[in-house]
């Protein structure tokens, strides 16, 4: 109805306002995309960052913030981000940015140390760090407790984390030439290392922690013996000179060897951290354990025990059945007698002596006493024998002497006293003394003889005069004979006709 408009007198015209361009340009997608990508990158970066840890070092030598890596078995697990001094200025605190997956091994007993090139008596390690620079090594802990602050070890642990094998403890009165890292041998094969050692709490011995690596750890059973294989084992005993060594390396660096005696039960491998005794040498280590020991006291009157030392064997017919445990002199104020009782420990079963026809119906001690009484009644006596003429070492021999004077075992004493016999040496000594005595006598006689002989031949003696006369007579006789011989030569007929006047 356009007419209507015209009829209205004054209607204002609508204002023409140019459309304001408020439409958002599509170009805004670009900053939005850029922002989204930026946020995404930031989020992934933050997500990819693992925990931050602090490690306390003694020195920052070789460490560099932003450069030094944390490596586990050669795998990069983190980087040092900053290094600063501790509040007391004695240590260095390094902060490391770890990889996100390292979360699970950052536990209480995880260990860190600086890997540097190292040359020790045993080996050369960390040569790679000469090129790559020092890095921080990690040994993963087993604990479940999470930890962020660590203290670094001074040196790398000898046994790398993850090495298969077992730790054992060895008890020893003295360390000898052993040191950390010294090898452990099994049948002369390097089978492990000494990890650490520490003094016993009582201070009476040392606990040596050793690591036996797989597959050798399965040969360590509760029955296994460990012994010092350090240096050269040289012993001069009644058995002669013995020289034994494990390997050239053990001479230089010391070492431990182990072996499981062939005798004895076959046991399953020992548990980790089992404690063993560290013996001094192989012989001692492999000696069977005491089974049924009896101690006796021996008193050797009028004879020296010089050369008899604890550890000297006690033999029966050349077979060892025990050893001397103690040689202790004593003085009796009552009898004013000085004696050197020798204590021996006899354990025939330990040394493999078999008893045949043992009556089994009695108590072991009673039976033992009975057997000993019978044996002594039959002349069982202990006596000293020279084991080695060169060194003069003695040993105790127990033998039957049927002609020995009757004696009994004194069970009242503790330890019981076993009757003794003068040893062979004493006999020798006696005969030597006798010999010397008679020799002396002979010498005196000879002296006398020579004296009288001297008397006979001295000048102006009867013998001398008579001898002179005799000689003169002899000279005269000889002269006459010569005259006779001359005459007979010239007048052989005189033999038949006799002297003629012509001859005159």
């Amino acid at each position, binding site marked *: 109805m356009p007419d209507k408009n015209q009829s209205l007198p004054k209607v204002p015209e609508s204002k023409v306002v140019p459309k304001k*361009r408020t439409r958002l*340009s599509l170009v805004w997608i670009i*900053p939005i*995309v*850029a*922002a989204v990508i*930026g946020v995404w*990158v930031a989020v992934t*970066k933050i997500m990819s960052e693992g925990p931050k840890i602090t490690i306390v070092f003694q020195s920052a030598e070789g460490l560099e913030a932003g450069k030094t890596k944390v490596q586990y078995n050669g795998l*990069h697990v983190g980087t040092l981000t900053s290094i600063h001094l501790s509040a007391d200025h004695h240590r260095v605190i390094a902060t490391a940015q770890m990889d996100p997956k390292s979360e699970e091994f950052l536990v209480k007993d995880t260990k860190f140390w600086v890997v540097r090139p190292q040359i020790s008596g045993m080996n050369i390690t960390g040569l790679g760090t000469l090129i790559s620079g020092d890095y921080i090594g990690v040994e993963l802990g087993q604990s479940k407790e999470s930890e962020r602050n660590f203290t670094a070890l001074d040196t790398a642990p000898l046994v790398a984390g993850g090495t298969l094998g077992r730790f054992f403890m060895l008890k020893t009165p003295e360390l000898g030439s052993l040191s950390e890292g010294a090898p452990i041998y099994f049948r002369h094969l390097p089978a492990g290392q000494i990890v650490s050692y520490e003094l016993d709490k009582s201070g009476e011995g040392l606990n040596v922690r050793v690591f036996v690596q797989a597959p050798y750890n399965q040969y360590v059973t509760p029955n296994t013996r460990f012994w010092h294989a350090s240096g050269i084992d040289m012993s001069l005993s009644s058995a002669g000179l013995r020289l034994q060594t494990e390997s050239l390396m053990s001479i230089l660096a010391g070492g431990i060897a182990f072996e499981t005696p062939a005798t004895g039960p076959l046991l399953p491998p020992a548990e980790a951290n089992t404690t063993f005794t560290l013996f001094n040498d192989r012989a001692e280590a492999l000696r069977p354990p005491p089974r049924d020991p009896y101690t006796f006291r021996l008193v050797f009157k009028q004879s020296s025990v010089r050369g008899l030392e604890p550890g000297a064997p006690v033999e029966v017919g050349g077979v060892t059945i025990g050893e001397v445990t103690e040689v202790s002199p004593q003085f009796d104020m009552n009898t004013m007698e000085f004696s050197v009782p020798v204590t021996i420990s006899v354990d025939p079963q330990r040394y493999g002596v078999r008893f045949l026809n043992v009556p089994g119906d009695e108590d072991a001690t009673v039976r033992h006493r009975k057997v000993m009484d019978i044996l002594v009644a039959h002349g069982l006596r202990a006596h000293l024998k020279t084991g080695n003429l060169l060194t003069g070492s003695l040993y105790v021999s127990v033998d039957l002497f049927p002609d020995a004077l009757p004696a009994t075992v004194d069970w009242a004493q503790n330890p019981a006293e076993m009757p003794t016999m003068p040893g062979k040496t004493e006999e020798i000594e006696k005969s030597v003394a006798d010999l010397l005595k008679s020799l002396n006598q002979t010498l005196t006689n000879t002296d006398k003889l020579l004296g009288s002989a001297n008397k006979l031949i001295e000048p102006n003696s009867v013998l001398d005069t008579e001898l002179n006369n005799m000689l003169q007579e002899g000279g005269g006789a000889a002269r006459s004979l010569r005259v006779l011989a001359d005459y007979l030569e010239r007048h052989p007929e005189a033999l038949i006709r006799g002297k003629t006047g012509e001859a005159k």
Partner: protein
Amino acid sequence: MTAMQQGLQRCDTCGLLSRPAPGEDEGRCPRCDEELVFRKPDSLQRTLAFLVAAAVCYIPANVLPVMTTVTASGRESDTIMQGVVLLWSPTGWPLSFIVLFASIMIPSAKILSLGYLLITVRRGSIENNTQRIRLYRMVDLIGRWSMVDVFVDTFTVALIQLQPLMSVEPAPGLFFFAAVVVLTMLAVESFDPRLIWDSASSKEIQPEVQYA
């Protein structure tokens, strides 16, 4: 007096002045068939968008490493600033300075300059017009040179591949850096410098002028 105030459009390509068809703002050049506009469409908004995008990318470009060097000692990633520090030495300082100038100062200067231009144009400032157009020309001129850093990086990556001794790999920061350069160039491109003069001329003659 401007062509726009006279209702005339000038072709950017052939320079022909023409009058747009009645009721239409946009048309084509009768001589060269180029699109004709009074001013670049949505100039301020587009410039701002590119500028914001560039600023957003500028952060990761500087925070993230641009190059990863793999040597025997391990991997080492360097950001631009670390590169500058690394190059800084009594003899190498000019090189360090070039990197600092081309990679850090120029992109930031560009973003700041364009931001300044946008704000002043938006507020209809009429001061320092000559200075501002000079600034714009300078930004336009140096824009492409920021790519030097990207080129250096890509050349290094291509050339240093001495496996297994040493090799160089590009790192994510490089892509953001390239994006910054490209986005700032686009921002410069979408900014219409004639806007600087529009407010000046409109204030002289037509204070309530509406501009795109």
